[in-house]
């Protein structure tokens, strides 16, 4: 099945929010802009509005205009909607301004001076804070988590070798090509006026909850509608709540529609990034290369507010021990508050950071015991029946050893390895190498997260016999609508043309949970199947579900008998049987299932410039049943290239905790000419509790490329790099002088 909205996107007909004329609900629309902090920490002494402007023509919102608590509703409501007299990071929102002339507005906002009495900020999460830098509890720690299995200390005493390493990863910006965009206007409803927000977002119900909380309105008086969304990657998971609030506050005060469209530099400076990490490994290894004990310490830069850091940390540590069996594991971790730009969700959600460290450590273990990198992984890969670090018994039927073997074959690993070594002996300045990474990714929310979410999906039987899927899960490019259509059509025994995907609108769709965590097809897809079953059973006789044309006819007939009424099938999440997680002690089934992957990278390093070029890349992925090969392949290829950027060039340059290089000229994502074709091979092991037999696909591709590439660079040059991005400037310092 082809992407539903594909031709509309290709021909430029798709209308994103900024494309819409200021007509209809946007008639008389004002443009909104944000006044931001020029400092990383301190008291706001004064906000001075430029004297060249007649401010009575502008709408200005300050914290006192917020009807409810000045809090952005999320895990802890510590992030203000507008800084309440005190700023905690660069570019934090301080005030809002709107006007109908966008250029005049830009000039007016530029005239506003925010004066700060500075306090000492925390800008390096790796260093313990001084007393005058403490801003949370006694130690600035946002969250501590631990995983404990067996007894690492005893195992270290009996080790053949102990390998230690310290690994770092940098912040990463999402660079969705559509910048953040939000609109808000007022409507009349049965219970009074309604604030309507429509914009680019991943999670309409997150936005709804944030609006309810800070505007002190119930869900009948706030309404959230997703507009076509040009990319998210996690970047539009939590921050759209803030922009929606900004837009709504301006619209409430102006009593006119308001649109906020970020330009690229504002989007890059102000919105959350991937958490930087520092991970320390100490591993006890047997002579044959078996892992005897893994002691891992994970530290995340949590940024200026809690945002999603506790759950990012959680996913991070659960993936920290990798897809390997080890009887003794101790993982200690913390997320630390700093005065850097808040970090949030980004594809992989903590796992790419800890997997990077684990995989680099595996290479160094291989070196320590004299094994080939593929071999050390083969020796340690989990087998069904063995347990993970949380003592989850691995099952599901994926043969990870076969996965590794077929990746080695498909990538011509041995041949490339031999040829690279021969090439390196003769070439004056080019060096080639090959590297591997084996990874896992837990699909869906961590632990009991899916149970707490209690997601719901409705399907509506329409009078024309078609079935409308009503879910809050959003299309942002990853193919939700196409995959849902295929799953619904299959479940109903109908054609794709008989399925309609409802626009995510909180007045119409139930909360199917956020569109994150590679959960959409697997978890929500399954709910669609069950909601259709529910509808099919309602219309069938004696509990026998109808399918196909009989179902379609029955839907039409029902409407003839019940004119004007709504026909719905419903489903609410039920966990797969025997999935249990103790989220206090981090013991048990951390995820209902895992996706598995092997990445093999072949690289070339130019010793003159220390530039690294990926020549060839193989991604072997077990994501359960593949619902749509073109879309799934596209997810993997896009994820791999995003990870190549994270590994090599996407260096986030900080100034006072803010982003200094907040332009696409200076934040370097790969172009088509920087990356090779990405060879994607799927190993399909259907997962019975996922929609259409699928597991998650979105995040797995982000996990393996960075360590595989650094492994290849090590093979090519001997440079044992432990931090990414491995820019040429950084690699140069690891290469011999006078290359």
């Amino acid at each position, binding site marked *: 099945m082809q992407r539903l909205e594909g031709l509309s996107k290709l021909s*430029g007909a798709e209308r994103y929010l900024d494309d819409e004329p200021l007509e209809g609900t946007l008639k008389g629309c004002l443009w909104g802009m944000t006044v931001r902090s020029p400092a990383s920490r301190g008291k706001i002494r004064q906000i001075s509005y430029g004297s060249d402007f007649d401010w009575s023509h502008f709408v200005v919102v300050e914290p006192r205009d917020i009807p409810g608590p000045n809090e952005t509703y999320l895990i802890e409501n510590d992030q203000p909607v507008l800084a309440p007299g005190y700023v905690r990071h660069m570019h934090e929102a301080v005030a809002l301004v709107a006007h109908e002339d966008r250029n005049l507005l830009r000039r007016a906002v530029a005239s506003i001076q925010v004066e700060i009495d500075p306090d000492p900020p925390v800008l390096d999460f790796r260093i313990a804070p001084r007393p005058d830098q403490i801003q949370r509890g006694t130690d600035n720690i946002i969250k501590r988590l631990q995983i404990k299995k067996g007894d690492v200390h005893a195992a270290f005493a009996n080790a053949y070798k102990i390998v230690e390493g310290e690994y770092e990863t940098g912040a990463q910006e999402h660079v969705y090509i559509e910048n953040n965009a939000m609109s808000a206007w007022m409507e009349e409803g049965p219970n009074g006026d309604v604030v309507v927000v429509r914009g680019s977002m991943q999670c309409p119900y997150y936005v709804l909850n944030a609006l309810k909380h800070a505007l002190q309105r119930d869900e009948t008086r706030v309404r959230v509608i997703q507009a076509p969304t040009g990319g998210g990657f996690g970047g539009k998971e939590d921050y759209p709540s803030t922009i929606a609030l900004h837009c709504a506050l301006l619209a409430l005060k*102006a009593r006119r529609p308001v649109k906020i469209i970020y330009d690229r530099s504002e989007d890059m400076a102000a919105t959350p990034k991937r958490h930087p990490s520092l991970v320390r490994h100490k591993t006890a290894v047997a002579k044959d290369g078996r892992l005897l004990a893994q002691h891992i310490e994970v530290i995340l830069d949590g940024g200026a507010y809690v945002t999603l850091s506790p759950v990012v940390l959680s996913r991070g540590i659960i993936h920290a021990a990798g897809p390997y069996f080890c009887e003794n594991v101790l993982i200690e971790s913390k997320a630390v508050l700093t005065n850097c730009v808040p970090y949030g969700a980004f594809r992989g959600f903590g796992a790419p950071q800890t997997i990077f460290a684990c995989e680099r450590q595996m290479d160094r273990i291989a070196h320590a015991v004299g094994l080939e990198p593929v071999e050390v992984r083969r020796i340690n890969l989990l087998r069904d029946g063995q347990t993970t670090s949380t003592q989850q018994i691995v099952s599901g039927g994926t043969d990870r050893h076969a996965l590794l073997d077929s990746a080695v074959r498909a990538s011509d690993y041995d041949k490339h390895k031999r040829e690279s070594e021969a090439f390196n002996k003769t070439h004056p300045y080019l060096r080639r190498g090959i590297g591997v990474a084996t990874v896992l990714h837990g699909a869906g929310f961590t632990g009991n997260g899916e149970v707490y979410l209690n997601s719901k999906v409705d399907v509506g039987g329409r009078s024309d016999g078609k079935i409308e899927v009503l879910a809050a899960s959003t299309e942002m*490019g990853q193919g939700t609508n196409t995959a849902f259509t295929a799953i619904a059509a299959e479940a109903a025994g109908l054609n794709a043309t008989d399925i309609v995907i409802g626009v995510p609108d909180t007045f119409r769709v139930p909360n199917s949970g956020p569109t994150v965590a590679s959960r959409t097809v697997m978890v929500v897809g399954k709910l669609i199947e069950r909601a259709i079953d529910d509808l099919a059973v309602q219309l069938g006789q004696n509990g026998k579900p109808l399918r196909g044309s009989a179902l379609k006819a029955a839907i039409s007939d029902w409407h003839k008998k019940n004119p004007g009424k709504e026909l719905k099938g419903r489903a609410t999440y039920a966990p797969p049987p025997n999935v249990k997680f103790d989220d206090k002690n981090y013991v048990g089934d951390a995820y209902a299932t895992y996706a598995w992957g092997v990445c093999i990278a072949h690289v070339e390093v130019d010793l003159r410039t220390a530039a690294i070029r990926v020549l060839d890349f193989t991604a072997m992925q077990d994501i359960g049943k593949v619902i749509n090969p073109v879309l799934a392949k596209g997810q993997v290829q896009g994820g791999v290239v*995003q990870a190549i950027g994270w590994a090599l060039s996407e260096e986030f340059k900080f100034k006072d905790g803010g982003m200094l290089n907040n332009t696409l000229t200076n934040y370097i994502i790969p*172009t088509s000419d920087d990356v090779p074709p990405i060879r994607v091979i799927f190993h399909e092991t259907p997962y019975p509790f996922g929609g259409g037999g699928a597991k998650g696909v979105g995040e797995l591709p982000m996990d393996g490329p960075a360590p595989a590439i650094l492994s290849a660079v090590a093979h090519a040059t001997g440079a044992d790099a432990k931090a990414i991005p491995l820019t040429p400037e950084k690699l140069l310092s690891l290469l011999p002088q006078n290359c």
Partner: protein
Amino acid sequence: MQEHFIPSPIHDRSAAVSIRFNLNGRDVDIPIDPTERLLDTLRYRLKLPGSKEGCGEGECGACTVIIDDLPANACLIPTFQVRGCKVRTIESIPASSLQPMLEAGATQCGACTPGVVVTANWIKEHSDVLASNTMRALMAGNLCRCTGYDGIIDGLEKWIGKPPGGRS
């Protein structure tokens, strides 16, 4: 700050320059603000929002249009510079011709896509440029964050009618 917002008249700074050019085969003669970028003229004045703004700095190519038969970034062109020029936008490319791009997965989120298609269509119409340039080099002015570029390159190969690169 003020408690009540007093609406002001729209500041119309337009009509300072009148320019004429050919847009997608039709002549247009319009008054413009001299500070206007071609991208804004197309999107907001002429109501052709197919060209997107991804960066406003000539890096991402989402605003790619064809000016006098060459690709250019509409965000870097003052509108007054296209007087007398032939301008083609994504709106000039029929959706019906784009099936090969669709089948290869050339679009995901769609935000970079119109620019990608404009450049790709130009390459297709000038396929002799492929004698001295690779497709990946010619497409390098169009940043895409979703596809990893394979869908775009495969789609363009199919569109041009070149046999696919032999990759599984």
